[in-house]
């Protein structure tokens, strides 16, 4: 499974982990994952990219859609465990200005 989700014990955050390539093929899975999270109410999204090898512009687009979908607070979407490659992609697109990266 390229995409897995885990709700934190207290239900305050949903971690979406992506393995391998994060691209357009994950569009539906990714949307289902965050829509599922949104049903739980006002929660924080943690995108775990530790196992992500590559991210294309569609993935950046999906992150944007998620951010808009939850109405934009800076800390509501956190990108975690980015490797060097992913960090580079985020910085070229200047997405590091839009998302908290940990």
């Amino acid at each position, binding site marked *: 499974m390229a995409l897995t989700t885990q709700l934190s014990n207290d239900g305050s955050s949903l971690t979406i982990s992506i393995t391998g390539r994060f691209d*357009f093929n994950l569009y539906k899975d990714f949307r289902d994952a965050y829509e599922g999270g949104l049903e739980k109410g006002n929660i924080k999204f943690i995108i775990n990219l530790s196992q992500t090898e*590559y991210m*294309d*512009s*569609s993935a*950046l*687009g*999906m992150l*944007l*859609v998620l951010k*808009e979908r939850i109405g934009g607070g800076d800390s509501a979407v956190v990108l975690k465990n980015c490797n060097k490659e992913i960090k580079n992609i985020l*910085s*070229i*697109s*200047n*997405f590091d*200005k*839009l998302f908290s990266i940990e």
Partner: protein
Amino acid sequence: MDDVGINITGVASANNKDALSVLIVDDDKTNRLILSTLIKKLGYTVISAINGEEAVEMYANNHPDIILMDVMMPVMNGYDAAVEIKRICCEVFVPIIFLTAITDENALAKCIEYGGDDFIIKPYNSIIIKAKIDAMVRVRELYNHIADSKSALQEHHSRLQLEHEIAETIFTNITNPKNLEIENIKYLLKPMSITSGDILLCSRTPSGGMHVMLGDFTGHGLSAAIGAIPVSDTFYSLSSKGYSIGDIAFNINKRLKETLPSGFFCAACLIEADEAFRTVAVWNGGNPDIIITTNDGPPIKIPSSHLPLGVLNSDNLDRSVEFIELGPNDKIYMVSDGIIEAQNSQGNMYTQQKLDNVILEAQKSSNPFSTIENSINEFCINAEQFDDITLIEITAKPLDIYDNTQTENNNQALAVVNWGLSIKLGAGALQQTNPCPLITQSIMEIQGLSEHRERIYTILSELYSNSLEHGILKLDSSIKENPQGFIQYYNARELALSNLQDSSIEILVEHHPLPSNSGGNIIIIIEDTGTGFDISSSHSSLIDNKNSHGRGINLVKSLCTFLSYTNGGTRVEAHYQW
């Protein structure tokens, strides 16, 4: 013919069978009668033929839905009739059920071999006949359903293909790089599908300069290509009216934000060059580093410093650009990320580092562009392409004279006139205001000149900061040289500014038409009450300063026709001609 034992128990059942007709083929009159009575009772209409030949004829004229066919008949037997009917019915499924007394397995197999779909062994049993006909009706419905879907799919497919072709034509017409025939520009476009998500636009400005834009939309193919329409529209329209690339980026962003679904955006770099090609202005949002190779030093890299177009609300878009001073035949390279992320047949990526090296090495060859192009093409041999690939090379040399009588020029609406303005800022005003945007805006309002906005703004703000920071605040710019220096410098600036008393800066701007009335000369004079400063030591030249965004007096010099500090550095006069 064999005896026929029939026990009619079937009763007309299903309602919808009225439409279906059954052709009974038998040379025995009694058989035909009995069978047709039975079939009619099942609710079908019946027609009959007395031999194979008549059956073929009746099929051709009446198009029955199901055929019950005797095997042994005079004139033409059942096998031959079946072959002929299957031949002429083409794509339509007409079930043929053989009626036979033969129980020899080979003969039964022959029924199927000649195109029959099933067989019924005499003597008939009405239940079996009904069951077999029902089964065939079901197969026939299934067949028709598939045939309908297939033709719908075919129709859909050809419509889609047509739409793709239309989109491709529109895309090619709109993005047709007609202006890329400029001698200074070489480019490589390798789209992944028919329509590319990369877009390359180039236009000459009314003042004889040039705008180039390389855009890379999210995704590939048709959906990506659609965004090219508003982008190229906005680009060409604003460029021909003389807007600056900052304005163009601002307006494209606004247009995309309004039209594209969220999650779709366009990474882009825009470049503006003046006619003499001495400086370029650059705006890079989300594209890989722009690389400029120089004759006299290491290459300059201009990384993306903005978000891609279509992401931010227009109020938040930063339209500021960077100016770079160029030497003759310096080369500017812009690429889409498709190159960096291109994979070879082993699945390895091309990488930024390889691109940097290839570009640098290629400068030693007689045709750097084709050397780079070959490297990319060789790398991609036998590999699947995942993204559109675009490479553009722009050589810094004076542009051809441009006949701008064909282009719209909104400056013509404003006559070239004499005017001047001056503004004097005391300590309090210096603490809370930056007058440069206001003055630039005033110049735009009075004289048009939006294509010169960034240059004028750059001159004003460089000269103003020098007067303020060095003339009045006495700051030493050498502390900016180390990474922490910038912060130290700006802390010192804040502190000195907040303690400022009894100082002022006066800015005078005058505009005089040129004798030909085809342009004007803007004279900017900035005078401060400071004690002056040593110009030669305070400002590193652009050559040393290339990596920290090329600011400084040499940049201003390259933008102006005249620049002079007098009165020990407390007064500066700059002339900008347009």
